[in-house]
């Protein structure tokens, strides 16, 4: 009798144990999948952000450190390969800025090599008065990255803002 009793309960314990283990395993699996998806999403966001950040750094470098190609691109945009806004390192050329801000939005994006992004560009004094600006105002962005650099325009230090967003 005693041995029959034990056998019956032994089977019940195994079934209960199996059910508990199954619940725990399934829960762990679901949590792991959630973690995995969340981690992947964060990683993708981070890669997108780093890509746009490195792009904004190279675009702002190109603007305030390079004269463009050819150097006198602003005189004839038919031969323009790339845009730069300085005569020499950090010394902005007013004619180049004027030509750039008067370009069409898509033309400017193509010359800067940022067709995948929207951009806003601004030159302002250190007291925040805007001297030149072009591009689109930011609306419904997923990622926005701004780069504020300093350069010299007619012997006055100015801020050069380049904002990219998607």
């Amino acid at each position, binding site marked *: 009798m005693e041995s029959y009793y034990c056998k019956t309960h032994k089977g019940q314990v195994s079934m209960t144990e199996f059910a508990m283990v199954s619940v725990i395993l399934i829960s*762990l699996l679901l949590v*792991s999948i959630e*973690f*995995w998806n969340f*981690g992947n999403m*964060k*990683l993708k*966001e*981070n890669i997108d*952000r*780093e890509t746009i*950040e*490195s792009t904004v*750094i190279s675009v*702002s*470098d190109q603007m*305030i450190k390079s004269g463009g190609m050819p150097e006198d691109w602003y005189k004839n945009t038919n031969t323009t390969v790339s845009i730069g806004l300085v005569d020499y*390192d*950090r*010394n902005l050329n007013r004619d180049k800025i004027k030509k750039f801000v008067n370009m069409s939005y898509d033309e400017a994006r193509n010359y800067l090599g940022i067709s995948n992004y929207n951009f806003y560009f601004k030159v302002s004094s*250190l*007291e925040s008065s805007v001297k030149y600006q072009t591009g689109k105002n930011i609306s419904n962005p997923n990622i926005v990255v701004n*780069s*504020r*650099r*300093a*350069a*010299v325009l007619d*012997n*006055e*230090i100015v*801020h050069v803002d380049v904002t990219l967003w998607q």
Partner: protein
Amino acid sequence: MRGLFFSIDALFGVIIAIILITAFSVIMLQAGENRTSGLFLSKIADDALVSLDKNDTLDTLDSSKINTTLAKILPKNSGYILDVSVFQCNSSECLTFSKVVPQSFTISVAPSTEKNPVIAKRVFLTFNSNNLVDHFNKAELKVWLR
């Protein structure tokens, strides 16, 4: 033997759980890191020194004027230390230099908050009224985010 078997089973479970948690934590930490913030700041520090030099503010060696302009260039949430060392030739051949202590200066803003600073350096000349080189100068700017 049965007890030992369950103990090993549990141990395996715990080890696997620890490995999974560690792997997820590492992925999360890597995802949260911003690796370009230091690069941004070093570009800003370099721009500041170059611009101050190019518009001749640095050449004045006027610490008050330099600090006023520098505060407008750098982000408002930054701290910085600017160290300007002024040197002059010891002889007409100019083979050796000595530091001109009275004209050298240091500007510090929020030095107690210094954390992961970036450093920009620039060497520049100052000229006398006859357009001859008066002093050889070195500016070192340390910037960090507060």
